[in-house]
């Protein structure tokens, strides 16, 4: 974490100095001998007395008290009558390994009869957690502080309020301070006084985490509230619900766009081959799978966590799948020219062979492809909306592929030939376009893009032999919906189907969403049998 501005730098130095002093203090504490001598009293205490002991320890800021509380919670705090002190006792078989509380020096093993375990029960345990959580708030590690706050938010306790306020005064980190303020707000809602409740409402205003929403709903159930407070709280709750809904829609939209991007990468190659050759390639899904497995294989050579392995996978997958595509075109599809249904069957056979080939080589189980460090994690905008980097990468990647492909199709001689063959094969051929060559290259291009789609997909799901099959029906739907031979139609269809799928999911469940989309397309194709953006022409069908 770098702090760039100069006031922040100053606080940074202050924190550094503070933590140095703190660690000196800590060293001193470790070196010092055990000071807590009432071990026997603690071990013998009744549960009610133990609670008193806990309060006493809680008010003691020392490292020793922290350790006692922590070990107590973990159930490894034991009283050792022989030396009349508390020690750490870890059960091993039937004996206990004893260690010094502070130095963790081994003190030998004893049987269970020679020691006295300091027992707890559930209510004590949760109280202990609270105490320890508020202690962790003072930790010098900001992540420990954040997780302590998250723990305390789960069950706000009015008793810790003074401590929280003290921490808030000394907190330097902005994010921690915000979280702390929200926590104080939640705690204040537990108060019985209206002005404190109002203060709490003010603090949690705008918070979107589930804890805030839950606490607020719970708060409104309280019958002894001031009407003014109720009004504010209700308004606050409505605002939270509303903005949660908006952010939820945003989140669905983001997921939908990333799904749409995957569909786009899968379908765009299919649209090219179908457009140019009128051939449905059922093995297209397997080219996606080949691309995903290429990523997996490359990760065995190049450290998977580096971005390089992914960047190298992209062109490699393009080459692997593209070559496979050209081979398939030369060996099989060329011979079935003009017979689309036979091509469909033959390529389906090829897809079965490729699936079984991968199953034989890599095994039937899913392989996990590691996400590079750079792409793991997410940008948390707030509690309800976060952008995961891998999905962002997929969207950006699809966009790059799209722009490149558009450039190739519109600006290069090859693109011109492909479009010419798509529109009128016979005419293109008589103008000197080598249609066979265009066929092979276009098929290779479409397959190569599918391979790159596989690389992107490997960042989102597991890689297995059935990977391609699960996307092939969806990609066909995209092609059928968008129409053939039109890049824009494919883009529109992929994104809208992706978004529609994710938008329907929370309303109806994932499976039903998919069924609804399929039914929609089946109905849609009745109206527009050639897709949304069909090439206009006057040719008769046969």
């Amino acid at each position, binding site marked *: 974490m770098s702090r760039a501005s100069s006031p922040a730098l100053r606080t940074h130095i202050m924190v550094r100095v503070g933590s140095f002093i703190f660690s000196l203090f800590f060293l001193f504490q470790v070196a010092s001998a055990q000071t807590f001598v009432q071990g026997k009293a603690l071990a013998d205490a009744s549960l009610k007395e133990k609670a008193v002991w806990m309060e006493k320890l809680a008010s003691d800021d020392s490292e020793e008290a922290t350790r006692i509380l922590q070990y107590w919670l973990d159930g490894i705090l034991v009283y050792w009558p022989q030396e009349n002190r508390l020690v750490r006792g870890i059960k091993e078989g039937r004996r206990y390994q004893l260690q010094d509380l502070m130095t963790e020096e081994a003190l030998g093993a004893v049987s269970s009869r020679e020691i006295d375990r300091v027992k707890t029960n559930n209510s004590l345990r949760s109280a202990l957690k609270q105490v320890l959580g508020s202690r962790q708030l003072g930790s010098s590690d900001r992540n420990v502080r954040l997780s302590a706050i998250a723990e305390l938010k789960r069950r706000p306790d009015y008793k810790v309020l003074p401590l929280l306020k003290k921490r808030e005064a000394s907190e330097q980190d902005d994010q921690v301070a915000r979280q702390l303020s929200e926590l104080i707000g939640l705690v204040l809602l537990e108060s019985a006084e209206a002005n404190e409740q109002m203060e709490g409402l003010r603090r949690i205003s705008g918070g979107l985490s589930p804890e805030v929403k839950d606490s607020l709903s719970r708060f409104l159930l309280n019958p002894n509230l001031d009407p003014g407070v109720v009004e504010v709280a209700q308004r606050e709750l409505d605002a939270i619900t509303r903005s949660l809904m908006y952010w939820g829609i945003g989140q669905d939209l983001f997921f939908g766009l990333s799904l749409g991007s995957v569909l786009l990468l899968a379908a765009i190659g299919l649209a090219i081959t179908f457009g140019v050759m009128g051939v449905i390639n059922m093995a297209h899904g397997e080219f996606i799978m080949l691309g995903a497995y290429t990523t997996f294989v490359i990760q065995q050579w190049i450290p998977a966590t580096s971005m390089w392995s992914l960047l190298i996978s992209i062109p490699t997958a393009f080459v692997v799948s593209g070559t496979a595509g050209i081979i398939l075109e030369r060996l*099989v599809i060329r011979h079935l020219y003009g017979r*689309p249904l036979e*091509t469909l069957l033959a390529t389906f*056979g090829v897809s079965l062979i490729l699936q079984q080939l991968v199953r034989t080589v890599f095994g039937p189980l899913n392989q996990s492809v590691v996400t590079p460090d750079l792409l793991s994690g997410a940008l948390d905008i707030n509690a309800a909306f976060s952008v995961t980097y891998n999905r962002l990468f997929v969207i950006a990647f699809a966009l790059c592929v799209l722009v490149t492909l558009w450039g190739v199709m519109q600006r290069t001689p090859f693109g011109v030939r492909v479009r010419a063959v798509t529109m009128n094969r016979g005419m293109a051929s008589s103008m000197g376009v080598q249609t066979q060559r265009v066929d092979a290259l276009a098929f290779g291009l479409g397959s190569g893009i599918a391979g790159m789609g596989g690389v992107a997909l490997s960042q989102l799901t597991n890689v297995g032999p059935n990977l391609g099959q699960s996307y092939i029906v969806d990609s066909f739907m995209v092609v059928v919906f968008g129409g053939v031979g039109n890049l824009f139609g494919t883009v529109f269809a992929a994104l809208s189907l992706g978004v529609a799928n994710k938008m329907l999911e929370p309303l109806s469940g994932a499976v039903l969403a998919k069924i609804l989309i399929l039914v929609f397309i089946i109905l849609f*194709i009745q109206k527009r049998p*050639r897709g949304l953006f069909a090439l206009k022409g006057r040719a008769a069908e*046969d």
Partner: protein
Amino acid sequence: MIGLRLRQLVFASIIALIAYVFLANVMFPASMGVALDSYSLTIVGKYLCFAILAVALDLVWGYCGILSLGHAAFFSLGGYAMGMYLMRQIGERGTYGHPVLPDFMVFLNWEQLPWFWYGFDAFWFAGLMIFFAPGILAFVFGWFAFRSRVSGVYLSIITQALTYALMLAFFRNEMGFGGNNGLTDFKDLLGYPLTSDGVRVWLMLSSGLALLLSLFLCQKLLATKFGRVLVAVRDSESRTRFLGYRVEHFKLVAFVMSAMIAGLAGALYVPQVGIINPGEFSPLASIEVVVWVALGGRGSLYGAALGAIVVNAAKTFFTGFYPEAWLFFLGAMFVISTLYLPRGILGALEDLAQQVKGKAPKLSQEGLS
């Protein structure tokens, strides 16, 4: 002529099989040792059901040019109709012993039978639904699809989407068809226990008879003017339309008939294997049917039946001995049959026979595109 003889051979061997099983398993006592054991009976019965399904697909694909990649959906619907009857027959003998509700509904805490399960306790109703459930689906789907002239690969993809959507739907527990596990644990059919050898023999025999019947009916249908128009639609849809025929009506009738035959096949299949689950709806299942027909001989009903039996015998062999190799084999069969056997085994045999007799083979791909 040779072709005709080959067809007669297929027909005759089915009759011979039925006659043999009838004689050996029904007429003579088991002690003679000529009777088929129950494992072989089930296997043969299964193959016969698949042959019926292949005939159904060949009717629309081979003679009408509609490549349906969703015929397993009709097969499964017929199977589910039969399965529902068999479930209702279990009665109180289920694990939970509920008098009306099947086990899975009790498990899901359902209070009463969903409306679409009513009537399935009567065999005649289930028998009707075997034909009507797939028939109505085919009618609705075909009416929309053919009317708006969805054809060729588009139609194929859409039929695949149909069966895929049905598979997803039937996987849901809320649908009321047993979800993932489907319908199983059947006890008896028409009061006779399903596991007994006698019932197995009769099921196999009725599968054989149903196959003969559907072959015979389709053959007769195709010999009429209706059949001629179907072939014309296959060969050139636009020309047929310009000649004044309502192409979509012909296609629809053929499609619905085919779906009903497929439903019958499914209904005979389910009691023999003892289970029906949503896996039967999977697109792969449908497309396997296509390869039976393609390999056996598209455009020849007997070829389709032969193809179903040959491919499934190969499947039994491979999955038993070399499970790894099965998909390789199936895939290769797709490629080989489309590249080198455009008219399937039967067509290749006919060509071969004609060549032996010194005549030029017929143009093998005429009209098949």
